[in-house]
């Protein structure tokens, strides 16, 4: 009987330790705290319309962040997410005259192709991914301007395109459905498929992965293609909210995407992180922004607090990850 009590206590302690080491769990707790405290001081936070807005906006940055998560998992980085979003948007936008479906198809295909370009540069030319994507960020962004001569493409006559960003299915915003669908599919693929496991192995230990027969280059190119696709998918959700596509629409999105991925517990050194964490990261990120906006601290103070809170959360992760001696 005494042994069983001790064993139960040990199990409880192990569970507690495991939970405290789990970034997703910690983020969940943080998000819950943010919601509770926020709703006390900002009563409109918990209104249905506001929460739907938070979800809608979290879906856009979250989609891009999911792609960023996959690239970070293989131990690389993608700074060109914003530019991929811009270039794929305008490429698809140039097809808007032929209908929303061709426009959206071209947008997604462009995203995949640009992602593959990044992957090929990183793997075949053996250039550091930071430098490659820094370069392609400029190239893709510049091409977006060249393609449109800096002009906007209006979406007033593209109801299907607009519906993607503004519509509802069963009371749930369409972007949320797209975001969660992509998130769940990718999460399952990463968890249960051979390629998914190889993505984790590659990021955790490149050399060991190579020795064990994993085609590292193929895995990395796949990761960049996924990142390109999710960046391209996020674009129409953003542009349809303001009725227009511009060649600078994705500018700065890469940093938000990477921030959300890291917030969601993805390691910058690869091999560690989950899509579910990134989904929670996107929700927490957007919730924080929403509280700051509703509480009226002002646009500039929002930037300060956004960065500050991000650092605080990452510090929490570092503390829980620190080995105890």
């Amino acid at each position, binding site marked *: 009987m005494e042994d069983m009590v001790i064993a139960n206590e040990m199990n409880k302690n192990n569970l507690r330790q495991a939970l*405290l080491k789990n970034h997703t769990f910690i983020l969940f*707790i*943080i998000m819950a*705290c*943010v919601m509770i*405290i*926020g709703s006390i*001081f*900002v009563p*409109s936070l918990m*209104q249905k*319309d*506001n929460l739907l*807005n938070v979800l809608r*906006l979290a879906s856009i940055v979250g989609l891009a962040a999911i792609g960023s998560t996959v690239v970070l998992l293989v131990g690389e980085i993608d700074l060109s997410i914003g530019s991929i979003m811009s270039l794929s948007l305008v490429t698809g936008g140039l097809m808007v005259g032929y209908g929303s479906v061709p426009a959206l198809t071209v947008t997604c295909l462009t995203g995949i192709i640009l992602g593959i370009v990044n992957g090929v540069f990183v793997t075949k030319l053996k250039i550091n991914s930071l430098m490659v994507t820094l370069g392609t960020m400029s190239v893709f962004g510049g091409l977006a*301007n060249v393609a449109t*001569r*800096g*002009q*906007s*493409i*209006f979406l*007033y*006559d593209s109801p299907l395109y607009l519906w993607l960003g*503004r519509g509802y299915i069963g009371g749930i915003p369409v972007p949320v459905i797209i975001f969660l669908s992509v998130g769940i599919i990718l999460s399952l693929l990463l968890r249960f498929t051979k390629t998914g496991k190889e993505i984790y192995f590659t990021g955790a230990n490149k050399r060991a992965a190579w020795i064990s027969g994993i085609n590292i280059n193929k895995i990395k190119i796949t990761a960049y293609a996924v990142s390109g696709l999710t960046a391209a998918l996020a674009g129409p959700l*953003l542009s349809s*909210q*303001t*009725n*227009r596509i*511009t*060649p*600078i*629409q994705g500018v700065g999105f890469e940093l938000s995407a990477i921030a959300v991925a890291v917030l969601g517990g993805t390691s910058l050194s690869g091999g560690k992180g989950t899509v579910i964490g990134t989904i929670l990261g996107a929700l927490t990120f957007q919730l924080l*922004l*929403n*509280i*700051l*906006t*509703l*509480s*009226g*601290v*002002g*646009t*500039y*103070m929002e930037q300060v*607090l956004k960065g*500050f*809170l991000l650092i*605080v*959360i990452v*510090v*929490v992760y570092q*503390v*829980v990850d620190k080995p105890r001696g």
Partner: protein
Amino acid sequence: MRKITKLLCFLLIVMMVFTVVGCGGGEKEPAKTGDSQNNSGQPSSTGNEKIDALYAEVANLQGEDALKFFEGLKDKGLNDAEILQFFIDLPLSQANAQIAKIYKDEGFEMYGKSYPKGETYNDFQWSKGSGTKITGPYSKNDLKLPFTDYVALDEGTVGDASKKYKIGVVFHGFSHPWLINWADAAKWEADRHSNVELNVQDAEFDNNKWASIMDSFISQKVDGILVWPMVEAPTGPPVDRALEAGIPVVSVDRTSGSKEITSRITGNFPANGAQAGMYAIWKLAQEGDLNAKAVMLRKPLGSTADAVRTGHFLKVLSYFPGIEILKSYHDTDNREEAFTNAQSALQAYPEIDIFFGTGDHEALAALEAAKMANRLNSRKDGKKIMFLSIDDSKEAVTQVKDGLFEVNTPYTPLISDIGMRVLLNIVTKSAEMPQDVITPNIPMVTQKGDVIFGMQTQTPDQWYEYTFGPALK
């Protein structure tokens, strides 16, 4: 475990403190009525006895009385231009304590005073229909430059026909619809003169790059430089270096930090703000209730366009104690940010009568946010929210035509051709140019061309050909 707990507690405390501060600072006390003591934020005399007498008369009026006074301006012998000028120079009233406080706290008086004022060069008067149709050399947009008769310069060679005049142009934004049209107008003018060689450089919203382009123009010994400075302070020294090197510099639209700049062509920021204020009051009066709650969606804090427009808007509103400014939101000239701000405003305030945008991005974002939140007709008795827009993009003026925007007060990028002509006159020593070249005010655009306080406005169709940017279809 203790460390984690401490960190979590720290995080929560920080959030609580900032949230509390935010809640406290976000709301402003509604105005107290009954304070009729007016206090001018402007010079006590405008130099025009007739106008000064009117200001003395309006000084102690507020609400309905001020409205009646404004409605009688035409009968007091003022023409359209004088009525607009009356509202531009209108002193701030203390009747609306909240607005007077915002005006003072944000230093709008200083911005208003430092913005160039005066008569147009050679008393130029703009008339509808004048100007020149072009295809933008860079944007390929169909445009009509409204002021090609202003500081007119004949096509063909300028100055010494045997000499090539090298002109440098530095601005920001081949990726920006307003700015690319700005560059279009400057290039169109330069291209009309075969002995002018143009070098246009985009600083891509980087002030350091802007300065280095200026320095490269100095080292190339260009004959003159046309500039669009994004902000004042960092653009002063490069302009001064060019002037020291004997190179004339002309700015168009925003002003640089150099006090010695050869010439500056400025637009109609004060008129934009005053016109938006006029329209808001006129429309409220038409509806029969001078009480309203307004949200201001604004450009970056400290930018000339934002401060001068907002300041002049608030001056007109300051005579009406029933108007409450719910909140100001700033963005970084980004429509997506403005959209988020508008969504937050709609969430935070169940009653919004007016959205005032200090640029077309802001007003267009507010419109889309209101549509998405099903709040377009959410005012008392199902009335539509009023959207006051500035900057005459084709997109914004189309919204006026469709009845979604109440008003647009035009501000056109198509004034850089004036700057180019001024610069060429200076470079070739063909004519003496003043330091300040004032652009004529443009009548506001309303759906039906209403008469506002005796002043005739224009319809979207009348102004459409002069608007900037790509067409909607």
